[in-house]
């Protein structure tokens, strides 16, 4: 393994977990539903970066790109459905606060 590859792996082991932490922190701390979606997006970007980095290091870039394309397609559909759910929640509760969803009504 070359020193450049070793340096790249070292950087990835620091930056990818930091991205995961940022996304998780956003989801846990926020009360705004749209900001929680932003946190989910950041988590999926961290996963995408991990896939691409592993593909580059292992020399299997084609396979990693195929997995990344699948991940992006699923991510977009999840975002669209989640956005629709948020719009419906706002129509029912007139607020974006997640605490309004804690009361179950028949």
């Amino acid at each position, binding site marked *: *393994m070359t020193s450049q590859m070793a340096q790249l792996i070292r950087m990835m082991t*620091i*930056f990818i977990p930091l*991205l995961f932490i940022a996304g998780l922190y956003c989801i846990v701390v926020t009360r705004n539903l749209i900001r929680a979606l932003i946190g989910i997006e950041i988590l999926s970007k961290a996963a995408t970066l991990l896939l691409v980095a592993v593909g580059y290091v292992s020399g299997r870039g084609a396979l990693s790109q195929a997995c990344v394309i699948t991940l992006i397609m699923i991510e977009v559909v999840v975002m669209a459905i989640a956005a629709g759910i948020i719009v419906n929640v706002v129509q029912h509760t007139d607020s974006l606060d997640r605490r309004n969803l804690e009361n179950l009504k028949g």
Partner: protein
Amino acid sequence: MTVNLVLLSGLLIVACVAVMKRDIVKAAIALALTSITLSAFMFRLASPLAAVFELSVCGGLVTVIFMCTISQTKPLVLHQEDDEELNTHGWRFAALPILLLLAAGVLARVPIPVEGLALPPATPGADVRNVLWTERQLDLLGQTLIIFVGFFGILVLFKRGVPGVERTDAERMKRAPSEGQDLNSASANEETASESATRG
């Protein structure tokens, strides 16, 4: 390697801006910048197809989805809980940079035997298209099914209500019986007139 470090640092910084920004529109724009930075880094890692997908889909389409959601959910009147959300936003998200610095310090000290790693044999001649069509056929089927699910899910979620029927609690609460006008029948007449106009 310096370029990689700059791109990764920029990616993390912009992601933090997207998390910490108080205005949700600016946060969505910062998220688009995160996608652009990630796409640039993917080009550096010899993954051009994934980079193009990330740039066009995540940087473009997802940002449009966010803007549409924000435009449809922006409240006309700020409720008390939204005021509280904005007032406490600063100190709740101020811990993120500190947490990231601490985590970076811990991760930098974790010993990882990078030099001794034995990498598997590479497949340099493989093409993404061949891999998708020959090895990942089920992924393609799954993507098609997911797209159909998303299509029908959006159709259901954005379905219009029946005219004359109050669809949501918010509409029911806005009705004011103390006023002389029956808002329910007035809105039902308006919806019926608009629907017949679109059909005609």
